[in-house]
């Protein structure tokens, strides 16, 4: 009997929770704010679903209700991706300057 692909995805999910657990415990407390902004940015990888939905409109029917929701989600996720990574970068840059000054 074949294993349901869902089980494979579930395995990835569970193992990733463990990876997340150990990786996040090793994050230094002084970088907890950048941690939040960067997790924010990466969770916007949900944009891939939005792009697929938005591109799914057929030639004669570019906009169906599904692709409109896809496009809206693209805007939201894009704000987050650009905003999240850039603001993280801005913060991390501030941690660097001091090192150089010392």
């Amino acid at each position, binding site marked *: 009997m074949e294993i349901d*692909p869902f089980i494979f*995805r579930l395995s990835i*999910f569970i193992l*990733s929770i463990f*990876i*997340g*657990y150990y990786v996040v415990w*090793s*994050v*230094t*407390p*002084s*970088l*907890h*704010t*950048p941690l*939040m*902004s*960067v*997790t*924010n940015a*990466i*969770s*916007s*990888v949900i*944009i*891939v*679903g*939005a*792009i*697929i939905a*938005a*591109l*799914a*409109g*057929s*030639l004669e029917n570019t906009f169906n209700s*599904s*692709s409109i*929701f*896809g*496009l809206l*989600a*693209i*805007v*939201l*996720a*894009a*704000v*987050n*991706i*650009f*905003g*999240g*990574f850039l*603001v*993280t970068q*801005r913060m991390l840059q501030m941690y660097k*300057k001091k*090192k150089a000054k010392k």
Partner: protein
Amino acid sequence: MISANLSAVFYLISGILFILALRGLSSPDTSRQGNYFGIAGMIIAIVVSFLSVENFSTSLAYVIIFLIIGGTIGAFIAFKIPMTAMPELVAGFHSLVGLAAVFVAIAAFLNPEAFNLGDLGNIKLASLIEMSIGAAVGAITFSGSIIAFLKLRGLMSGSPITFSGQHLLNLILGLGIFVLIFYLCKTQSENIFWTVIAISFLVGILLIIPIGGADMPVVISMLNSYSGWAAAGIGFTLENTALIITGALVGSSGAILSYIMCKAMNRSFVSVILGGFGADNSSGNTKEKKDQKPVKNGNAEDAAFLMKNASSVIIVPGYGMAVAQAQHALREMVDKLKKNDIKVTYAIHPVAGRMPGHMNVLLAEANVPYDEVFELEDINNDFANSDVAFVIGANDVTNPVAKTDPKSPIFGMPVLDVEKCKSVLFVKRSLSPGYAGIDNELFYKDNTLMLFADAKKMTEDIVKNLD
């Protein structure tokens, strides 16, 4: 168009890059490289999603336009936002992730063919469950984060809003969502799907309104976690590895931060979620405060004199410093002290400020070297050997009551042993209690000098007096 297997491999790579992005944050030196890994992972995921669509319709142009619009708004916000506003920015961003998850779930529900999930009205059972859970968690994240945003921004009172039967109502609504998802699977009805989303929005609001301002670090971390679980739910629906990995990472990251914050306040996660903290205590306390105990009142001149004659000073910043934007003035003051060969360090309590690591970022912004900034457990023993503790904008995290009075609501909370210093300078606008609503014994100690003023103004005055 690339094969499904190839795109799955690329999604896996981008998931790994995201893990490396978080790994980089283990030290400030590797953190920037980590951020680049994250960006690379995101670019890979986006490019692959374009390539995996079979035939590009005319919508491609719109997709790119919307991507640019969103990106421009995001970049604009990222460059403009002051560092003191980071908590509300993060809350705002969480709400966007939540809403995006809801929209993607709706898109998948309305056009399941595009995602290979079956046909409209006949969606695969597992996918239907996954997408409704993703949509529900996303909706809770969205409305909850909006409330958190409003509270942090000061557009809504930070005090808890409670009413009788609140928790029962939440419980009923929560169970209602599960029952509706069950019927959704049986009937595939569009109306039930919309109802699930609507109720989830309501639950998000109801969950966050009873939680007070001081508990915001926990709330933000919790919503961070929720946004991750929502993304994971969508990831299962779309059978996308990158999303599943990321959702799990973000979900556990937020959960760990919530745990750290609860631990730092010695409160259980459940009691924070149930909320109401700070409301009932403050009322009882105002009566008690009627008998005013004497405090020693000082000015900038006294403070400057004390610090000039010290050999070591520990600075304890808190939310008040963020509100007054006093971090730059503070840094100026510290520079002057250092010129006089006075050793200066910073002590940061985990819940100082309104989000995890809030104070560290503000000090970093003011060019304070991060090796002068210490966490609670690393510096607490130093107070006994130091001459002056300069408390600026912090309150509850220095309250000795947490160690001495088992009846106090903050009893057992780890606090900074500020009172062990030879003298304590306490910058505060008034004698009013902090967010926990309790009086700080420290105000009335013999070695405490109260400096009643705005944090920024007082620090600037001290700087003048140090010359």
